């Protein structure tokens, strides 16, 4: 327990001490949203007179913010190894589970914070910002955020360098996000693409976040599509966390 709070708190403190990281990670999705939204809104038509593209894209960008903040928060793991801080943690009398959970909780907190800040511009997308919306979404941010922080942890633990990790993660994360239904509705895409994306964990996270932007909790719990996606997202969290504990309890790289 001590390890968890020490390491999680440290992640958060370091995050707020790097203003460039703070600004960059918030500004990039915002620009993405503004430019893509403005560019495509003319040619995008919802089938049933639903939202315009700017509004359609908003939950996708929200998820992007959450995913990338979660995954890239684990870069500190590589930095800690390179800088030597990790070696001291690994010979301290704390369990590896504590080390893993400390990192995951810290990363999840950062990702949730960023996504919550981005929630403030929801009215610009035409989504009313209510207490109920925040109360529904924030727990989901935590769930999705932790699953992807753990995913990042697994890759970061075996990465030699920050640049290598960046290269790997951008090849993995960007396609996963693009094929999640964030940029365009997956329902109208070709069958092979739909089949591929059935295996994409980000797709389920997208369903969870998008539906939660519009529906109340009771309605969500009656929606089989939401419940299935929530279950897959929870399973993803368990799977990746178990994998993170597994890799961390093997030998660390020298």
């Amino acid at each position, binding site marked *: 327990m*001590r*390890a968890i*709070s*020490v390491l999680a708190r*440290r992640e958060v*403190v*370091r995050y707020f*001490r*790097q203003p460039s990281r703070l600004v960059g990670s918030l500004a990039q999705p915002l620009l993405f949203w503004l430019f893509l939204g403005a560019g495509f809104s003319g040619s995008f038509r919802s089938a049933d007179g639903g939202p315009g593209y700017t509004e359609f894209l908003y939950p996708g960008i929200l998820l992007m913010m959450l995913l990338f903040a979660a995954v890239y928060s684990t870069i500190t793991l590589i930095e*800690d190894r390179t*800088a*030597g*801080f990790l*070696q*001291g*943690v*690994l*010979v*301290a*009398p*704390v*369990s590896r589970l504590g080390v893993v959970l400390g990192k995951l909780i810290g990363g999840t907190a950062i990702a949730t914070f960023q996504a919550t800040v981005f929630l403030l511009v929801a009215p610009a997308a035409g989504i009313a910002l209510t207490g109920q919306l925040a109360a529904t979404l924030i727990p989901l941010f935590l769930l999705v955020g932790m699953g992807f922080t753990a995913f990042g942890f697994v890759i970061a633990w075996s990465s030699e360098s920050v640049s290598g990790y960046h290269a790997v993660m951008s090849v993995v994360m960007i396609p996963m996000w693009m094929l999640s239904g964030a940029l365009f509705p997956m329902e109208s895409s070709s069958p092979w693409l739909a089949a591929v994306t059935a295996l994409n964990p980000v797709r389920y996270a997208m369903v969870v976040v998008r539906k939660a932007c519009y529906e109340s909790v009771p309605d969500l719990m009656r929606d089989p599509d939401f419940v299935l996606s929530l279950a897959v997202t929870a399973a993803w969290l368990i799977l990746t966390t178990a994998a993170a504990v597994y890799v961390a309890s093997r*030998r*660390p790289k020298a």
Partner: protein
Amino acid sequence: MAALAIEISNLSHTYPGSRRSDARQALKEISLQIRPGERLVFLGPNGSGKTTLMRILMTSLPPQSGTVRVGDLDLVRDVSRIRRQLGVVFQRPALDGSMTVVENLRAAARLYGITDIKNRIDSYLGRSGLEGRRRDLVKNLSGGLARRVELVKALLPKPRILILDEPTSGLDPVARRGFWEQIEAEREERELIVLVTTHLMDEAEQCDRVAILHRGELMTCGEPGQLRAEMGAEVLVLEGEDLKGLAQEMKEKFQVDCSLVDGALRMTLSQEISLDQLRRQLGSRMRSLTLSHPSLDDVFVELTGQHLGSQGSLSQDGLVGSGD
């Protein structure tokens, strides 16, 4: 609290090979007893196995074969209980440069479950002269001060074993002395085993015992004075032309075996040799002659055929006489 000793028995370690490198045996059947409260220094060049041995003792590498017992605890089975008794200063910095001195110490204290964190940190900062720097970011400290913080961090949980891996490399003599004074102050208060690796002979001389490692084997372990005394009375080093010829001549005329180390001819003398006679015999072929009492470096050269600070083997075209 009962006195704490460490017993290392038949410890071996092999790094597995890969496509690019062969498997390498870093430690071969090391057995060694470390006594309560002693300062033991491990000497050895790169590749001698001392880093591997240190990593096993600090629990970052599990032993492959053989056992290490710390008091009545086993290094494999009771690793978390042993970790509570260890303080480690790594060769590479292990502090978070983006946090302040006191934040680093607080984090370490929490990891070790210390309860009176504030008092403990204040008292250590006071006696290490870091009081005025507590709110400085670690990355802004000089090398010497940062090492002092590392030492405070290692001492904070009041460990019974302090492991120092090249702790003072890169420090100037003043910083080095300060570092050791702090350890001595700690040792005056309580029993503390200090295990250290160093390249510096004067640091090694201050320790209670010296263990010399070479190619994964423990060559010897003893008190510095005793190791030097076992060497013989004096060490003679000759430089000049035709060293092979000189070696031959020394053997024939004075019955001493020479070895060629670092481009000089080196011999240990057990009986006195007349310098006049030597000068007459060797004449102008000898460029310089050094006669000295054996140092730890001489002990090291005698056992391994190379100087401590040097890389790899130095015997050029084979050693002449003894030493190989």
